[in-house]
């Protein structure tokens, strides 16, 4: 998907002209060529070499019918992400949902981050790409259930120093716990792909150096980022979008009957304004969640969330 010709590799469709102007500037900054349209995309708009379609949710259903099978569709959601996540759960071309308030432009860095990653294939890891230069970051290897609990207990202390409200401190401890439980208990498999520890989450677990997870947490004062990487790469996009959509579609009353899958994804979705999943099948799965320290809880609760799934080799 490397940009080689003079033809634009990106098509952006949004009924809001201001959003399109802004996107044009963002793509210019990134040295990328972009074609913009205020109307719905049509089949003729997809020139050879158009690899990405950035489309508002308003035009999404048109886009699904005309976009080529190898074109990645990036959805600019309108307030509510339920429908976009539902579409992503069904259509493999949709791996990226940008949360935005109605009539507000998307976050430029987020668009740039996703588009450049898709087109230029950067091998990004950890939380460094999400924080400003000079940010304070911690990384630690989590090789046992004991390590897991130590890390979870440390998280509120770290958050407290940032002046975050107690609820955010415990929220992030919960999130760290959720991500690490997945990495330590659910992800590890043996050579035959059989789960090693998922059957009993109450047992004490010790992982080998190759099986250990990497936990990262950091902040630049504006954004708080948490990330967990496991060396198995077994998460699938259907778990992400399917779980989130099911939980959100339950209209705030998630039914845990039947296994309760979705609860964990709901935790990830709700605990940050953006969640980034980088899946390298058989190699690693990394989940990064971002929280905006500048928002109060009330603003944060109603903020539309972004979800991005990257498949990399």
């Amino acid at each position, binding site marked *: 998907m490397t940009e080689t010709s003079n033809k634009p590799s990106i098509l952006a469709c949004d009924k809001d002209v201001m959003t399109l102007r802004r996107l044009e500037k963002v793509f210019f900054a990134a040295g990328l060529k972009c074609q913009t349209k205020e109307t719905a995309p049509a089949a003729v708009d997809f020139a050879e070499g158009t690899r990405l379609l950035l489309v508002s949710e308003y035009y999404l259903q048109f886009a699904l019918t005309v976009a080529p099978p190898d074109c990645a569709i990036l959805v600019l959601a309108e307030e509510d992400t339920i429908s976009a996540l539902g579409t992503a759960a069904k259509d493999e071309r949709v791996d990226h949902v940008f949360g935005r308030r109605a009539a507000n432009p998307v976050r430029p860095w987020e668009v740039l981050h996703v588009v450049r990653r898709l087109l230029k294939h950067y091998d990004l890891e950890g939380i460094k790409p999400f924080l400003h230069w000079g940010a304070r970051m911690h990384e630690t290897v989590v090789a046992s259930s004991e390590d897991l609990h130590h890390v*979870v207990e440390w998280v509120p202390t770290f958050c407290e120093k940032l002046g975050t409200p107690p609820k955010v401190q*415990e929220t992030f401890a919960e999130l760290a716990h959720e991500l690490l439980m997945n990495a330590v208990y659910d992800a590890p498999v043996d050579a035959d792909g059989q789960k090693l520890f998922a059957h009993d*989450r109450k047992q004490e677990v010790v992982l080998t150096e190759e099986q250990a997870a990497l936990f990262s947490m950091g902040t630049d004062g504006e954004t708080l980022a948490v990330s967990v990487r496991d060396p198995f790469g077994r998460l699938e996009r259907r778990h992400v979008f399917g779980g989130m959509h099911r939980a959100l579609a339950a209209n705030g009353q*998630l039914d845990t009957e039947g296994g309760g899958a979705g609860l964990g994804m*709901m935790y990830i979705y709700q605990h940050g304004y953006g969640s980034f999943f980088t899946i390298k099948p058989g190699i690693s799965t990394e989940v990064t969640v971002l929280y905006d320290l500048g928002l*109060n*809880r009330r603003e944060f*609760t*109603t903020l539309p969330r972004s979800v991005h799934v990257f498949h990399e080799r």
Partner: protein
Amino acid sequence: MADESRLEVRKVVEDKIIALQFNGTIDESFNAKQIAEGIKDVLIVDLSGVRRISSFGIREWLEFLKIANEKCESIYFIKCPPRLIDQFNMVANFGGKGRILSFFAPYHCDYCERDDSVLLEVADHFETIKDKKIPDQPCEKCGNAEYLDEDPESFLSFLSSQDKPEPDPEVISFLAHRLRYKVSSKRQKLKIDKHVGEATYIRFIGDLDGSFPGRKIAEGVEGVVVMDLHGLGDILDEGASIWIQMMKTMEPLVQTVYLMGVPHQFLEKLLIPEAMAGGKAKIVDFFLPYTCTVCNTTMDLRVPVDEHYEVLKFATAPELPCPDCKGKAFAQAQEGLLAKLAQLPKPDFGKSWVKFVETVKDELKKAASATPASVAAAEAGAVGSGIIGLAITIVLLIAAVGVGGWFLYNKISKKEASDEVITAKANASQDVPPEWIKEESLVIEKDGNLNIYTSVLEAEDEKSGVNDAEGWAFDLLVEHMGNKIAEKDGVWKAVVRGLYYQPREDLLSRYKSMGKNRDRQRDVLNLIRDIHRDIATSFKIAYGRELKAKETYWEKYTETQNKVVRREYYKVYIRMEFPLKAVDAMIASLSERKEIDGMTLVRFFPGLNWAFQKTAKGLIVLSMKPESKFNSLLKPSWILTHLGSNELMVATEFEKQFESERKLGEEKKVCSIPISYKYWKPEERIAQAHAAAYTWACPKDPTIIVRPPSNNTNTGPGFQGNIWDDPTK
């Protein structure tokens, strides 16, 4: 696993009630079956110590709730932290059949950037929770309003869907004595249940205050009286003196008065000879605060006088085992009180009386869960078939003072059955109704006065009727003045009246739409009463002195069905008088404008209390010119409450206060003046409080900059271009 995260569960058991206090994290270590062991009948879960809950913990919790739902009759959650409120909102059946009694709401003060966690009792805030708009609270640090730091729509979605929790008296008593927890932080109106059989059983639930109908209770009692004080809350001085009077009245009529479940605050205030019916009152058991030497828990423990008589008579409290850990617990009582306890007579409260009390409590429980009509029917059936086993006629009197009047079921028999309700006047404050009373609310100018006539046609008693009627009179008076100002001043009408007109209309139409549903109407009426009180306070501040009813008149009515008095109520009429000259002076003062640098201000108008509760002072921004220095900070219709630390009240003084603050700021080199204000959010129908800062550049002192010699060029080795294209990365 780190110790801090481990879940600790403290179990407090008393008869059929079990309380579980969780401390720590609900995660994979949560063992539903083990924790649910032994729970029965009533379960109380104190969640204040829960720090976190994981998704796996949720699954285990649901398992625990499943068991609890099967085993328990009722489940109550107290002190739910916000993280768990999120789960109640998000996960279906997270609370099972349980009810949340209280929760911590996260608050934020913009003024001092402080987060707060406020424990809110659902019973106290039921109406506002239903409407999904919890009121602002005063910040503990700066006193300005702090607001709910959550989206109320989503945060209150579960809470607003649950019914008003009304725990049984036993549960209230258990919470008070064992967990030292009050179901409501507000005054609890006293509820009295009375049952006449072999003896007269009277149960008190709530606070003993000035509304305590001691005289009515004392009337007609005879023989043995058993007073159950388990549910008694605070004892106010006024209530205590009525209690003493009641006991004095009872003295010649009764044989013995047994006092059961006497709380220690009662002992401290009322363990005096005057309150003991001339020695006829005997304390069966009482509660004292005890501290366990092992687990260090402090709780109220029951001390049966009969059992510990030999110890008590030496002015010593008995040593009791801690009900939680069985360690030794010692009483925390003053010597003076112990000396009084030493004088207590042995109560000789035999097994037959214990059985009598248990039977009556069961009966009252059944009666409470049935409607008044069905209670009457049930009682009739029970008497007819002799199930209760009482040969004499049962007289069941459930007195629900302040809740719905008095319900009296008297000599119910099938022969006398008739559904007709007869209403009759029973009493009046004077024999002939005075000429001045008016059936309709009216405002009339007469003899140099403004006369306001209001009435309350279904008051619980004469005193509350007069209070309510005065509240409505204030409302009419303020409306009258508002209309007068609005006639002359279009801008005032649009801004000030525009602020409170709709909230007032909304609440009044809600009140009217409740029709005859007294329970629901009572909740709205309480809200209106609060607003009327606010209006009266604002009025008093604006006028300079208090205004009361000039004349009052009341009539007492009884509603009888099947010769049984079903309800008693009062019609109360008042006339309020206010000199016309004072009306004109107030109108002039309340509408007087003052323009300061393009911003026009007027005084706070009492009618605004319909939108802004607990506010009595302030200045309203009436208009703002674009060139005003305040234009970027403040907006028309905002109410300015403070300038720095000064309360704002008079428009003409704003400028002086502003200049004084400005001068002070420059002296201190802090060139910023905080202005606190409140504003109305029509879409959410709530008042918000915020603060803005008027800032300016402080005059600079002359400074001499000495630049040290440096060779640092701020450049270093390495790639200097776009970091993304760094070839070394």
